């Protein structure tokens, strides 16, 4: 499907040292996401005593994330707030950017960077690496106590250790896969419904009335649902990251 295709922006591949380093539409949307985020944050960081509308909007987001981190990690989680906040805002803005109706302009189409496992996988690996680094630097080899829950009978320890270790190692995969699949599946669903609308219209007015019209109404609903999913997935990613950080900081 064309909307998931990563392609060079100006039609020419730029190859250096055996690697394709051309500026792709994926890179463009990452820069746009960063720019939008930067603009949004700069507008709200005037630190006025009585916040205006913009500052209130920014403070809603920062307050939301710092509450979440505090509730999940405790007072020691304060130093992870910037990371979780950046993660949440980047994923949220990237998801929403992918839903922009740029496709109505001929020759352009929006690109969802989070619909590629390379991007979400790297975000998940960064989260997982921070968990490992924090865990091992704070607790040393005592970090392995994470894999043996309190009160495990001695005979069950080897089994529990293997199970907990596996569930720990699967975390980065599930974290990256969830975001990637949720965004991809949503866009494919919209694409399929859009196909119904266009094919119904091409088949004549009778079929258009019974196929295209209901599909179009459904599409409006699904688009709203996708906007909700964008926010939920960003929230879930940030929430799970802070939960995993809690494991590393507090060891159960």
């Amino acid at each position: 499907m064309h909307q998931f295709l990563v392609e060079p922006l100006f039609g020419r591949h730029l190859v250096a040292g055996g690697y394709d380093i051309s500026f792709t539409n994926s890179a463009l949307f990452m820069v746009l996401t960063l720019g939008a985020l930067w603009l949004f944050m700069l507008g709200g960081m005037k630190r006025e005593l009585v916040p205006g509308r913009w500052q209130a909007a920014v403070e809603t987001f920062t307050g939301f994330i710092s509450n979440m981190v505090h509730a999940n990690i405790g007072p020691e989680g304060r130093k992870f707030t910037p990371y979780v906040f950046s993660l949440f805002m980047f994923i949220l803005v990237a998801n929403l950017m992918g839903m922009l109706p740029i496709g109505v302009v001929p020759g352009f189409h929006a690109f969802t960077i989070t619909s590629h496992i390379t991007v979400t996988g790297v975000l998940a690996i960064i989260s997982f690496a921070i968990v490992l680094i924090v865990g091992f630097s704070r607790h040393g080899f005592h970090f392995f106590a994470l894999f043996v829950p309190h009160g495990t009978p001695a005979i069950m320890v080897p089994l529990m250790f293997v199970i907990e270790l596996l569930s720990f190692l699967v975390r980065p995969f599930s974290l990256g896969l969830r975001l990637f699949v949720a965004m991809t599946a949503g866009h494919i669903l919209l694409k399929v419904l859009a196909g119904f609308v266009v094919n119904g219209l091409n088949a004549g007015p009778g079929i258009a009335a019974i196929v295209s019209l209901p599909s179009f109404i459904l599409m409006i609903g699904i688009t709203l649902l996708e906007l909700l999913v964008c926010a939920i997935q960003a929230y879930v990613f940030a929430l799970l990251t802070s939960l995993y950080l809690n494991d590393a900081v507090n060891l159960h």
Partner: protein
Amino acid sequence: MDAEAAKLLGAGLAAIGLGLSALGVGNVFGKFLEGALRNPSAADSQQGRLFIGFAAAELLGLLAFVIAMILLFVA
């Protein structure tokens, strides 16, 4: 059976997982609402747990989708 036909059948069977995960997600939100209506003052503090349960149930449905896609386009 033709290998191509078996792939398509497998992808179709994987769709059952989506329905089952729908049951799971519905169960998570339904039970949360049930509890939240009994004790509304405690509901807000449990929203994080609600979304953890939602994420876990949803992931299994998404995995079914991944299996269908792998069967259709990769295998």
